């Protein structure tokens, strides 16, 4: 019925997962991008905010020629992915954008997972009135239009986090943006955890735990919560790309990560403006985003098949 979670079953799940080629490939792609993002500052060939403008050659002013060159350059040896509308190195900016987008994903999963697991676990293990109250609250959060809430939160909170411009080296505006995205994503997680816990509440091992005198919170956390681990992990893998896409959509309407910082969404929507001049500038970050999406999808599918004993062949 539910995900198996004893040590031996984890071993079996891993064995099943290892045989799933597309799931494994998805995991490898993700690991690759995470490694690249972490090594970003080392790999970067240039400063992501530096402009590489070169004055136009030849003395005569040609109105058809841009006054400064160095913008919209095609990929080359010096600028691996070319340069953008401000003559910045796209390769170095992509590394920065990848890091910010992955941070958005992790942050969203942590916020949504944290709230969702807490609400779901308390609702399922607490008294009936608390369950009703929490689940009605979940319904309310679910009825809230995601993008609208993010836009309103972002506009209402501004660019400071309790007065601070930067928190732990991250721009406060960026942090709030991710917080808002995470805040719209927890209801699904809460419902999932609640359902899983309700399914194991009345089983014999729960009664055994009560019989040996385990405290209610210990039973909830040590005995019930692990049963939700499988579905929670799978949901998290689907949540991560949603966060990156939400940030990209916000960037497109000008409410994403603020300049000069970059995210994959900012790069895609910036480069979108001059796609007719230099299409590779749009194609590269879009391809990376697509690979991240496909990687998480296939990893999620693989994990679901591996963690769900019914699916075994």
């Amino acid at each position, binding site marked *: 019925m539910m995900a198996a979670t004893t040590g031996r079953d984890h071993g079996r799940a891993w064995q099943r997962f290892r045989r799933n080629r597309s799931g494994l490939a998805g995991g490898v792609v993700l690991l690759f991008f995470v490694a690249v993002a972490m090594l970003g500052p080392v790999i970067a060939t240039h400063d992501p905010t530096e402009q590489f403008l070169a004055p136009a050659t030849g003395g005569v002013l040609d109105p058809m020629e841009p006054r400064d060159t160095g913008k919209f350059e095609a990929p080359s040896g010096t600028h691996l992915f070319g340069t953008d509308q401000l003559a910045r190195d796209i390769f170095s900016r992509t590394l920065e954008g990848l890091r910010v987008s992955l941070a958005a994903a992790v942050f969203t999963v942590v916020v949504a997972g944290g709230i969702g697991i807490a609400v779901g676990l308390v609702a399922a293990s607490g008294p009936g009135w608390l369950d009703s109250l929490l689940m*009605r609250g979940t*319904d*309310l959060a*679910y*009825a*809230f*239009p995601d*993008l*609208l809430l993010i*836009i*309103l*939160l972002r*506009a*209402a*909170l*501004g660019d400071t986090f309790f007065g601070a411009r930067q928190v732990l080296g991250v721009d406060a505006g960026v942090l709030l943006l991710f917080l808002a995205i995470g805040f719209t994503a927890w209801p699904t997680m809460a419902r999932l955890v609640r359902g899983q816990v309700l399914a194991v509440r009345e089983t014999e091992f729960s009664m055994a735990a009560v019989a040996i005198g385990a405290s209610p919170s210990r039973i909830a956390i040590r005995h019930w919560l692990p049963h939700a681990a499988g579905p929670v992990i799978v949901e998290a893998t689907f949540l991560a790309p949603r966060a990156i*896409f939400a940030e*990209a*959509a916000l960037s*497109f*309407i000008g409410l994403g990560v603020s300049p000069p910082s970059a995210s994959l*969404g900012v790069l*895609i*929507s910036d480069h*979108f403006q001059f*796609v007719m001049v230099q299409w590779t500038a*749009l194609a590269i970050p*879009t391809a990376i*985003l*697509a690979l991240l*999406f*496909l990687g998480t*999808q296939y990893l999620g*599918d693989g994990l679901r098949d591996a963690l769900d004993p019914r699916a075994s062949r």
Partner: protein
Amino acid sequence: MARYIAARLLWTVVTLFALAAITFALMHRVPGGPFDAASVDRPLPAAVLEAQQAYYGLDDPVPVQFGRYLGHLVRGNLGVSFAQQGRPVTDLMLDKMWPSLLLGLMAFGVVVGGGVPLGVLAATHRGRAVDTVALGVATALAAVPSFVLAFVLLLIFSVWLGWTPVFMGAGFGESLSSLPRGIVPAIALGAPAMALISRITRASMLEALEQDYVRTARAKGLSPLAVTLRHALRNALIPVVTVLGPVLAGLITGSIIIESIFGVPGIGSAFITSVTARDYGVIMGTTLLYGAVIMLVNLAVDLAYPVLDPRVTLR
């Protein structure tokens, strides 16, 4: 049954009240007002600004304003738009709702007409090339942001093939001949949900195909097509329908991104304009509309459940 519906409707009203309160509070926390220099074409003289604020009651404390808003709301009055010379919000939204609704329904057609057959095809050919291709097509369409997909589709259908106009513009939905203009935006709008539906259909079909009644149907000599469609698919659609509800609600309430790219004069673009213009009445109207639609559609899905699956009873 009637009690169940009554309880749900009552709960919908309570939720909408909470939604209204939170949105109202958030909206007034956003710096700037509807008549500030940033929101109007020409800055107003201080005296005029003051008079305007007083006329619309914007100088009252926020809770007082909210109370007044609720008073009007229960009588079906959503107030007036500040940005459009006092046009009633209900009037404005009825105007904007039509293109969004129509486009959303077309996108819903793409989602169901594309997602379900792809999912069935993938499930009946599990592990073979057809499975990989069917799922791959659906997933690839969802793997790029909708504005990039919209651009690529525009490039192919409008620029290279010249089949559809680049800009959708006004008049969409006013005549039958204007409907084809919505095809490309509808594909871009529906693509992510189509991928989701095809995956759910596939998973659910795989489970259904292993049931005893499917084996019985095969054993009594029914054609594979009849077994797949009439016996397996009917039961496999139950989890699909639960997901289709919120998907439909999301599609018909208008997409901010798609509407701004194709120039659709719909709810999504009305919302984003209203946020930048601090057009309080329109912000509230669009948010409440979205909330009401999503809750009513979810109620409809729950009511459809026992019809689809006789084992389920509502309580």
